[in-house]
């Protein structure tokens, strides 16, 4: 056996160029498959994590019926001790109570349906952080007029401002981006623009009885900070919930759909409004990562902490099955892309093997003619292929590793509208690669299988070898 290995090794290096070409085809196959999959998984994962972390959370404690029937009747009693108990569980990042319902919001003659989310102003900072979404600057008619009067800005910038009339921004960086000023203009004009367009806005105090209204809803209702909004809806156990709430601040929500209907208030105010003493509809739990193991252990441990039989912990994919299926679907289409890549790669490897066999046909013929057993010859060729595959595989993985590492730590930064949108949501506009996981070995495994498949051809060829024909060729 040792001898066979020796012969195989020598055979490989007898025709160095052919060996390198074959090994290179395996190398590129592994390299591309690993890097592509890592990139696919990583960037997609990043987006999903962002989405889950700011919308549903990884886990939610809810009343058992809440998901099917999101009524305030399906709420549950809550206290700080359960929050601190859950916070202590391994890998839990944040625990945020929510009390969510729908009501009518009305001011003057305008009325509109609104999603009311009651929060704990301090705890919420770790989750959706509404404070960062408060409108800081608004380009109003008045602001533009005053800027014109002050005569501090060139006309073209006034024109740009007029194009963005009525827009609101939650940071000065966003104003800059939207106006698209040159850096010179920027330094010159921004202080004035910011000065005149600044809006005063407050966040909710701990036991505030006021509300925050999303920008589009506020402009529909024609309310600003200091005005009042009437809320009318159904409270706990069908009681009529009505109340007047002062507007403390206006929020600019990045999603237009949410911007059209969001009202935020404190949990105590909402409990009073809905007559739901001490109740909330969900506890949103964020974890360090969304691996199955982390989610499952955290879920089990939270479930064991829950004393109320009517409450249950649900995972993000139970809460949002459509998103989950979409992710699965996208992952499948990524796999399909990979399958096409594999297909091309396989024929690359197979082509070089084919070439090798036809080149060595005479050699095989001579070997068999002078008495070498076909069995032995097959073994030697198999070992050769094994070496080739191993060299390509190892080199491919070694070459892929630094690329994956680099893009994991220094991910590709997105630019343009897509990036703006992501930043609006408070997400990083980057596309990182995925850390080494099962996918890494899988790609290597699949390429190894392809090498084995490609080996079948020379073995069959040797099996059917007719010495005379081979010698004549």
């Amino acid at each position: 056996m040792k001898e066979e290995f020796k012969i195989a090794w020598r055979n490989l290096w007898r025709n160095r160029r052919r060996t390198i070409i074959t090994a290179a085809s395996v190398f590129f196959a592994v390299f591309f498959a690993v890097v592509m999959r890592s990139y696919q998984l990583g960037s997609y994962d990043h987006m999903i994590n962002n989405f889950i972390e700011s919308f549903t959370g990884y886990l939610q404690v809810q009343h058992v019926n809440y998901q099917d029937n999101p009524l305030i009747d399906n709420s549950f009693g809550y206290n700080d001790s359960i929050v601190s108990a859950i916070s202590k569980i391994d890998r839990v990042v944040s625990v945020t109570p929510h009390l969510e319902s729908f009501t009518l919001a009305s001011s003057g003659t305008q009325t509109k349906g609104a999603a009311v989310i009651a929060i704990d102003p301090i705890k919420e900072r770790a989750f959706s952080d509404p404070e960062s979404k408060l409108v800081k600057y608004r380009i109003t008619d008045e602001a533009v007029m005053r800027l014109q009067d002050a005569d501090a800005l060139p006309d073209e910038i006034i024109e740009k401002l007029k194009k963005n009339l009525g827009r609101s921004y939650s940071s000065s960086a966003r104003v800059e981006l939207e106006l698209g000023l040159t850096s010179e203009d920027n330094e010159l004009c921004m202080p004035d623009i910011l000065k005149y367009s600044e809006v005063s806005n407050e966040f909710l105090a701990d036991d505030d009885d006021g509300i925050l209204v999303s920008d589009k809803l506020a402009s529909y209702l024609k309310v600003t900070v200091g005005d009042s909004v009437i809320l009318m809806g159904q409270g706990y156990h069908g009681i009529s919930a009505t109340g007047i709430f002062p507007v403390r601040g206006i929020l600019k929500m990045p999603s237009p759909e949410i911007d059209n209907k969001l009202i935020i208030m404190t949990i105590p105010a909402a409990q009073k409004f809905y007559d739901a003493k001490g109740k909330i509809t969900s506890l949103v739990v964020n974890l360090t990562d969304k691996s199955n193991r982390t989610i499952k252990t955290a879920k089990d441990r939270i479930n064991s902490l829950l004393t109320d039989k009517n409450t249950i912990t649900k995972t993000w994919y139970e809460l949002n099955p459509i998103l989950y299926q979409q992710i699965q679907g996208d992952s499948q289409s990524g796999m399909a892309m990979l399958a096409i890549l594999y297909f091309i790669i396989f024929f690359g490897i197979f082509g070089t093997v084919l070439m090798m066999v036809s080149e060595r046909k005479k050699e095989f013929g001579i070997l068999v003619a002078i008495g070498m057993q076909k069995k032995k010859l097959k073994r030697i060729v198999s070992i050769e292929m094994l070496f080739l595959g191993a060299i390509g595989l190892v080199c491919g993985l070694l070459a892929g590793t630094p690329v994956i590492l680099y893009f994991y730590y220094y991910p590709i930064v997105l630019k343009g509208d897509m990036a703006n949108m992501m930043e609006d949501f408070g997400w990083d506009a980057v596309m990182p690669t995925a850390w080494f996981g099962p996918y890494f070995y899988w790609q290597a495994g699949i390429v190894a299988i392809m090498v084995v498949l490609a080996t079948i051809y020379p073995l069959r060829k040797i099996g059917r070898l007719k010495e005379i024909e081979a010698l004549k060729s």
Partner: protein
Amino acid sequence: MKQYFIYLILATGVSFNHLSAQDLSATEIVKKADEKFNGEKSSYSLMSMTIIRPGWQRTIDFKSWTFGRDFALTLITAPAKEAGQSFLKRGPEMWNWNPSINRLIKLPPSMMSQGWMGSDYTNDDILKESSVVNDYIHEMAGEENIDGRVCYKISMTAKENASIVWGKQIRWIDKKEFLVLKAELYDEDGYLVRTETGSDIKVMDGRTVTSKIKLIPEEEPQNLTYIEIREIKFNIPVEESYFSQQNMKRVR
């Protein structure tokens, strides 16, 4: 309690017009039953409504004044969170006054099919109650026994141009006292939507009435709403001007 006894004493003295069945058409029976309950001219009543849902129930107390068929004023007196809300009905329109938000709201047609105060009664039920006489074609469908009382069974089909949600009703009206003991309400496709029953027959303000009305929706049989009449007075001195938006805010 004292009052109740007085009514009892009075009631025993009242001799009711005993009309024989042959003299009455189905329409007249329905009309009689309707007037008996709502008063020929006006009425005042003190009621409580209990809403029963799987897992919880709650009771709302309210006072109600009616005048003719077109005017009604209802004031919620309990629970405290909802007390002071009032509802005004003038003809086909309905308003709601809510003191906690200082607002008078006209209930739009889109809200007519929604539950009144979260009960199984819809706003439309409260508005259109009086049209049982005018909006239906009544037909005698025989006699049946309900709770040991002999009843006319009257089938009522909605008139073609009437704006009512029901396609058909069947009412069982007590022969002697003209009390609606049972009513089945069907939609326009002929499916049973809900059943109402009247029970706990008492004499109040000189009239024998069913003091408990129960409503069972067919599709959610575990849901239930019943109204209990605590006190009722018929033909009280009240004027049309009483049923005004100003009075909605004042009435106690």
